[in-house]
């Protein structure tokens, strides 16, 4: 935390509070003492006038003094607050505040620090246990005796490549990626099957694009080149943010294999996408493609959840196993 040059002032306030507390404590203490003393002098006739009068005078003076001082302070606070809220003065906060100084250190290579990034698959949508492949991967790794920490899961339902690309600019994401040495990425499914959003019950962040367009081979392929380009940018940006981290990209599977009309075009589109991803990933030593196409092909009924789009728990388990194999 930074030093504001307010230390002196704040400590004065602090002492002021302590002072008030002292006053208050003394007042309470004396009051109790006086009650005891008074109990002892009840039958002492000469006591009245002296004792009782002083007691009430003392109480009154303390109470009125504290309350008046407090009231004045609080009114000053009120004036400040009203002024501050109604006429807020934005500071050039960049200069006043410390910039992100946290430089991530990869001191111990042994311990794996995992961050997951991407869409609903990274989040684990469809898994009744809520774990998804990310948690299953992490727990599988630690079961194997690997020291592993999950720093965070930044999967957001219905995220597309475009959405993720802008997300990478966010400070928190940037920071988390800095801190990680293993980055699990799942993205692209929503670009490819964006009109299939209708099938999943979660509204999309960018759901304006929802049209009643037919899901055809042409429409599936139309979005591909652009999205693939963005995937490349994403991967490069991640490795730019943290060159030391290993990136594991989850390949796509075809969720529409059980719809005869969509089997062939779906397979085709997914294959093309995976190939495009492979092209990019192969150029970088710190990236790995984790294929999932074969895990689901022909087993959709077993491994997809009720929405016919996301994997179920078993499906995620299979994906997780793949990831474990790739990482360890």
């Amino acid at each position, binding site marked *: 935390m930074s030093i504001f040059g307010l230390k002196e002032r704040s400590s004065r306030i602090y002492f002021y509070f302590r002072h008030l507390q002292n006053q208050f404590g003394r007042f309470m203490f004396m009051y109790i003492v006086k009650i005891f003393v008074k109990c002892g002098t009840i039958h002492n006739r000469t006591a009245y006038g002296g004792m009782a009068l002083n007691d009430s005078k003392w109480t009154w003076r303390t109470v009125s003094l504290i309350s008046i001082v407090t009231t004045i*302070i*609080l009114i000053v*606070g009120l004036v400040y607050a009203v002024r501050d809220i*109604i006429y807020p003065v934005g500071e050039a*906060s960049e200069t006043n505040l410390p910039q*992100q100084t946290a430089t991530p250190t990869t001191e111990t290579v042994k311990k794996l620090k995992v961050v997951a990034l991407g869409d609903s698959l990274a989040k684990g949508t469809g898994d009744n246990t809520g774990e998804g492949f990310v948690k299953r991967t992490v727990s599988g790794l630690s079961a194997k005796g690997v020291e592993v920490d999950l720093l965070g899961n930044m999967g*957001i339902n219905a995220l597309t490549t475009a959405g993720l690309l802008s997300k990478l600019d966010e400070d928190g994401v940037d920071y988390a990626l800095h801190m990680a040495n293993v980055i699990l990425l799942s993205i692209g499914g929503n670009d490819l099957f964006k009109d299939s959003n209708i099938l999943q019950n979660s*509204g999309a962040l960018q759901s304006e694009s929802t049209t009643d367009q037919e899901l055809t081979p042409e429409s599936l392929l139309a979005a591909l080149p652009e999205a693939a380009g963005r995937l490349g940018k994403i991967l490069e940006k991640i490795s730019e943010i943290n060159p030391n981290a290993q990136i594991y990209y989850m390949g796509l599977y075809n969720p529409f294999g059980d719809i005869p009309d969509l089997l062939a075009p779906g397979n085709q589109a997914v294959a093309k996408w995976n190939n495009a991803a492979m092209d990019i990933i192969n150029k970088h030593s710190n990236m790995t493609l984790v294929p999932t196409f074969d895990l689901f092909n022909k087993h959709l009924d077993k491994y997809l959840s009720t929405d016919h789009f996301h994997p179920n728990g078993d499906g995620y388990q299979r994906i997780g196993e793949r990831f474990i194999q790739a990482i360890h």
Partner: protein
Amino acid sequence: MNNMLPLIRNECLKIIKKKRFYVILLILIVLVPMFTYAQMRSAERSRDKFNSDWRLEIQQQIIDNQNSLGSDRIPEEWKTYRRIFVQQLQYYLHHDVNPNEPSGVTFTREFMDNSVTLFIPLLIMAVASDLVSAERTTGTIKMLLTRPVKRWKVLFSKMAALLMFVSLIVLSTFVISYLISGLAFGYKGFNIPVFTGFKISGDSVDMSTVHAVPQWKYMLMQGGLVWFVSVIVALLAFMISVLVRSTAASIVVMMAALIAGSILTNMASAWTTAKYLFMVNLGLTGYLSGTPAPIEGMSLSFSMAVLAVWGAASVIISFAVFTKRDILN
């Protein structure tokens, strides 16, 4: 004014001797440790989960909120609220400031934010609700009003004493929650920066006016707002205690109003005229922390104006009724 002071002194002494103020202190001393403990446990838990890295925790919070934005089951008002919340969290992250830096001061600040609409008003009611009605139930009002003092002066002295105790209650809430939570979180943290000045329009936040203030100054401003709310609540409770003969009835009336207020606030209703009710305007500190107002069209000046009108009306009614009414029993 010369003969006013002894009257105020009388009323203050009566409040003290009735032990109402001690009850309030006792409530604080019992409850604050509970809140502190709960807060400590939740802090411990998140520390375990996020390796005591608050940035990761905040980021996860952002992601969780963004995910809920996607759900159709969540009402649009809540989404607005969460969108604003996400933007604020991102702002804190961007400036590398932990909004929940664990310290006694932060705890106190958050405690005050949470207690301004219900808890502090309740404490105020403990003093205000029977200020006049108790004199009527016990019959001492006859003694009070047969002295050669004009009735408005008697009432004024009661009101003045009440306002003195309002300040004392606000102060004690601050002091007690600071002292007790400090045991758990440490007494430092007066100069932690806190952001304020979030200008909320629709569901986005204008960050151009956001600025950092040291926490002590933030708490000073917060204290002022809490005080303002408390004064209005005190005046309202005071009026009810003038109007209603039984103390129990006067407490019930005020409680019902306050609880209705917190329900209405949570419903964030489409019933926009509800914003003219005093109870939904009690969360003044929200304007400081940048919490969106429960009903559209509310702003600090609006809320303060509404509260001031209610307060002024209750003062006028209190005096009009008290000075005119026959004391029949």
